[in-house]
């Protein structure tokens, strides 16, 4: 078993707001992230896959293929988007980094055939990141 990690960046805007909360509750819980005009981040996504090394190629999986899947499934869908308004997963779910990491996991896992998805790590800023391992 060997682990391979690939990193990619995307930029997106979002805001945190739960329509079931009152305006005061939203402000109290989400603070400045509740600004209705949104704000943005340069997200860094690290995707780790695991598998056995193919004895012919020496690869777990082709890095180029992994990059293409990450670009197609994640970057093309999220980069320079307003997550709340433009990404279907967040029509009724708050686009916190936790929820974004889970959404990315769900987008990637059916597309990976040669290697198994092990971890999605999403940096919202250099000082803050979320790890998701597909656990319930």
């Amino acid at each position: 078993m060997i682990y391979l990690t690939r990193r990619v960046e995307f930029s997106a805007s979002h805001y945190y707001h739960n329509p079931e909360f009152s305006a005061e509750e939203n402000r109290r819980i989400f603070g400045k992230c509740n600004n209705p005009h949104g704000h943005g981040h340069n997200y860094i996504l690290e995707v780790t896959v695991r598998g056995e090394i193919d004895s012919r190629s020496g690869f777990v999986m082709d890095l180029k293929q992994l990059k293409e899947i990450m670009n197609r499934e994640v970057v093309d869908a999220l980069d320079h988007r307003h997550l709340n308004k433009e990404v279907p997963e967040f029509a009724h779910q708050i686009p916190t980094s936790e929820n974004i990491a889970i959404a990315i996991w769900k987008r990637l896992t059916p597309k990976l055939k040669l290697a198994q998805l092990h971890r999605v790590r999403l940096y919202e800023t250099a000082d803050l990141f979320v790890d998701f391992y597909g656990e319930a």
Partner: protein
Amino acid sequence: MKAHLTRRYRFSASHRLHNESMSPEENLATYGKCNNPYGHGHNYIVEVTVSGQVEPSTGMVCNLVDLDGFVKEQIVNRYDHMNLNTVDEFQKLVPTTENLCVEIFNRLQKGFRPANVERVRIEETMMNSFEYAGGGELAH
């Protein structure tokens, strides 16, 4: 008390990804630009994680001088400013970073005695990295 210790090392080397048993077309399809016959290079970063009991008298898992000395002699000097395809272990093994990671882990585990070798992680570029822990699963 058991603790883990990780140290980073660097070396620069070139390689070419090419499997003699594949046709030129298959090599190109599999390895793309990494199949360039003249090779290309990377600044590799190797992270070595060792573990062991913290020795009460020194407060150390192992002396970093010992780890540095071993890694320098057995790993860095072996690969730095080399063409990986010319090194013994890659005569019949394609020098992908997966295979390099396994080779380095095995070399460390076989020879380094002061602490248990837990994991080797190699950054080939800023955008990709490889981890091997003897074939088992990585702890979270």
